């Protein structure tokens, strides 16, 4: 195993210490694993709290700051955080206006956030939850745990975070978060498996010359394996899968997301193909974001997320944000 780590047991704590050193504008509790914007709780504002396994950086800790998340709870690598973390985070960011949990649809995340919500409500925090489930690769929810939450998490956290920053009440922030999730769909592709520090070797075998279509973000294999395709073919496949599931009715924001080990050269090239397909399908693109935002350790590959927006959602997307990984307009 060649990884830039000391021992697998301390990777998350080590990363948090490094994050704290790099971002004095955040308050990083390494021991309890909670990352909080330093000025929390902000009077009159709803606190957005999210979290999930580590290994998806910059998600979620990289999205903590004015205009986005009030706090993030990183779990062990690819393992959801425990309820104690969310309860602590909720207490730290609650100004009395309530807290919104943004939860990705994975069994572990859902169960732990549910338990945390119950405990936090017992402590008097007014709480709402939104479940992100945007992955079109999972179709048959009767026989699965339901659609996974992937790239749309960024849209939900940014847009609902902007609403919270403006002082919108909890019910409004929650309904905007729900609307963003309902308007977003994703599809992911892996060109290599990821390596978890605990295992030290790739989590699945992907022979050279093949790729996985329809992956999630935890190093799990996808729904289908095929011989390697060109960037153009992958873009056609991914965008069409998304549009088939959510026929275009309004302009979209595009997220071309890298899974961790794919260089920007390739991601920009892929984005060119994504824009081509969207133009052929006559879908207006109002904003585009390209980069590594919802990653899966050292997995090579990418995902495409489209978020259909109206004027209000676009305005909230454009609103100022100041976090380690997303920053504009301030």
């Amino acid at each position, binding site marked *: 195993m060649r990884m830039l780590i000391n021992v697998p047991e301390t990777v998350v704590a080590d990363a948090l210490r490094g994050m704290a050193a790099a971002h004095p504008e955040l308050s990083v509790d390494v021991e309890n694993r909670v990352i909080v914007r330093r000025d929390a709780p902000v009077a009159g504002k709803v606190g957005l709290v999210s979290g999930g396994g580590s290994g998806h950086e910059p998600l979620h800790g990289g999205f903590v700051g004015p205009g986005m998340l009030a706090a993030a709870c990183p779990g062990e690598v690819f393992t*959801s955080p425990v309820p104690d973390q969310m309860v602590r985070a909720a207490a730290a960011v609650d100004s009395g206006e309530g807290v919104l949990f943004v939860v990705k649809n994975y069994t572990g995340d859902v169960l732990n956030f549910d338990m945390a919500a119950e405990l936090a409500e017992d402590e008097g925090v007014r709480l709402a939850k939104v479940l992100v489930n945007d992955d079109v690769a999972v179709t048959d929810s009767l026989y699965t745990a339901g659609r996974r939450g992937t790239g749309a998490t960024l849209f939900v956290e940014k847009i609902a975070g902007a609403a919270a920053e403006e002082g919108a009440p909890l019910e409004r922030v929650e309904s905007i978060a729900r609307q963003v999730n309902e308007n977003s769909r994703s599809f992911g592709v892996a060109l290599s498996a990821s390596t978890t520090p605990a295992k030290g070797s790739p989590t699945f075998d992907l022979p050279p010359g093949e790729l996985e279509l329809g992956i999630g973000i935890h190093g799990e294999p996808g729904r289908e394996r095929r011989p390697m395709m060109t960037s153009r073919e992958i873009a056609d496949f991914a965008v069409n899968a998304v549009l088939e599931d959510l026929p275009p009715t309004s302009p979209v924001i595009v997220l071309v997301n890298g899974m961790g080990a794919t260089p920007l050269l390739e991601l920009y090239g892929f984005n060119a193909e994504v824009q081509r397909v969207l133009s052929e399908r006559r879908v207006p693109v109002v904003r585009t974001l390209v980069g590594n935002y919802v990653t899966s350790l050292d997995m090579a590959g990418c995902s495409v997320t489209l978020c259909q927006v109206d004027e209000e959602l676009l305005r909230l997307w454009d609103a100022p944000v100041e976090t380690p990984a997303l920053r504009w307009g301030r």
Partner: protein
Amino acid sequence: MLDAEFFRRWLTAAAARVDREADRLTELDSAIGDADHGTNMQRGFTAVTAALDKESPQTPGAALTLAGRQLISTVGGASGPLYGTLLRRTGKALGDDAEVTPCQLADALRTGVAAVAQLGGAKAGDKTMLDALEPAVAALGDSTESFAAAREAAEAGALATVPLQARKGRASYLGERSIGHQDPGATSSALLIAALAEVAG
């Protein structure tokens, strides 16, 4: 009769088994999950034994609820809430008695397993913990001898997950590709029941 000391030995034996089999659990999980089940269970049961040493609970119910709380607070993922619920609900069902009969334990475990099924929205055949736990509690009777039968039923149940297609948890995303692999959760559940048979025997 089974006292708090019996339950401490059971949980300690379970921790030892999880420790020994951690690599195997992780290996099973890497086939259809994300390769962390062994590590996560190991972290949780290490916390359980530490807490038992520190707080030395005086009743069977207190020992199990303490263990359950530790698992919820340290494991994460789906395993934390599910195993935590199993032990907490079993412990609560045992109440405050200083000693319980094997029959009481069997009934309490059935309550705990039902709580797991409800929390996870799963049933036997979905390729989860329940495929080991349900046959195990069905085999439990009113004597400690029945614990050995429960162990065999749990191990057979875990083995029987191999040809199943996962319908719950992360493995469900693989669809038909989850077939042919033993479920890591059912495997760790069988470890827990095997530890029970071990300390009873």
